[in-house]
């Protein structure tokens, strides 16, 4: 899914050319595929100081 109409409209409001809005939308559509990552390839990252499971119990509540 690329940019929605509301976002496109706000870019038009900033006088961004239509061709660039289309290109932005295409980039965003491609990148949003990242949400398809399977859980088994997501690790703790030192860039985020992410601590999986911390305080989450068995995860049923989240």
């Amino acid at each position, binding site marked *: 899914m690329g*940019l929605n109409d509301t*976002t496109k409209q706000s*870019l038009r409001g*900033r006088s*961004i050319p239509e061709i*660039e809005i289309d*290109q*932005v939308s295409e*980039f*965003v559509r*491609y*990148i*949003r*595929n*990242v*949400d*398809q*990552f399977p859980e088994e*390839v*997501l*690790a*703790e*990252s*030192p*860039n*985020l100081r*992410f601590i999986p499971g911390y305080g989450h119990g068995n995860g049923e509540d989240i």
Partner: protein
Amino acid sequence: MTDRENQGTVIEIARRIRMDETTAVAVVELCLRQIKKVNPILNAFVEVFEEEALQNASIADAARVSGRELGPLHGVPVALKANLDIKGRLTTSCCAAFRNNRVTSDAACVERLRAAGAIIIGQTNMHELAYGGTGEVSSAGPALNPWDQSRNAGGSSSGSAVAVASGMVPAALGTDTGGSVRIPAAACGLVGFKPTINSISTKGVMPLSWTMDHVGPLTRNVTDALVVASAMAEEGSPLAEGVRVGDRYRGELKPLKVGFGRIPGFEVDASVGEVVNEAMEKMQQYGYMLKPFNLAYTKEAHVSWLSIMYSEASAYYARALEKHYEEFAPSVRVQLEAGRHISSVTYLKAQRFRTHYER
């Protein structure tokens, strides 16, 4: 445009200066002559520090005569990509929006180069903000490939590669976030590599993606690349022990294990495959342990890399983009705008995937 018969390698130049066979001033003058001859055609440099380089070369020669201890790059001219801070100079990343960005201190890697005795001779052209792999998009105009001027030089460290390949300097620095040292090195027939993250500080590098940016050397041979990179390396990193790595090459330490990744279903050009196979055979002859493996999740890796780079670049340049939209090249500002529409969840997942992938 690749005539460099009067030029030596980093190692040769440093040795000749040390042995009093030449002077730093003579070497810098040779480089300046070549720059004047070919740079008007190839557009590798955005600024040449002629007076300052000659002055520093003269100081370097005086230091040698006085018997002071000399660094590994004593008197060796080095060019720097235009996104590396040089005290008192402009850091523009070849983007018109930053044409007045004068900085007050050296980047950490530049400090280290100077401490090793290098002479900073000028600043090189690049793909705007390092946001592209061709070198064709730059406020200074494109740098041209010295082997064939109808082709691009590769990027984003285009000017650094062109400067070394055409004999204007024996070594130059680039930065690499997704190939920006390795692509121009390949396109211009040089050695360039992306050192292990954090082994060379990126403090004072105008960022593209602060968690993925690297500083790397562009040289004419492997030994020169090792010497230049080692001179910039953070203490305690394996790269700082460049000499010990050299010992390893000579078989004095246990040979390294080298991974050899393939992407299933992806075939390289036959001539490239041949060279890679030859290199692997030689490595095996020297006792290296080659470990082939298949790269998985390559599409996810690409999207993860883009998500991180887009998010970080857009966060860093958000204010500048709002104030100076017209002063960014269209292909760059489109990517900067795209990064503003990536969710934090996507960014976080991309960082987590990256960590998994690096293992």
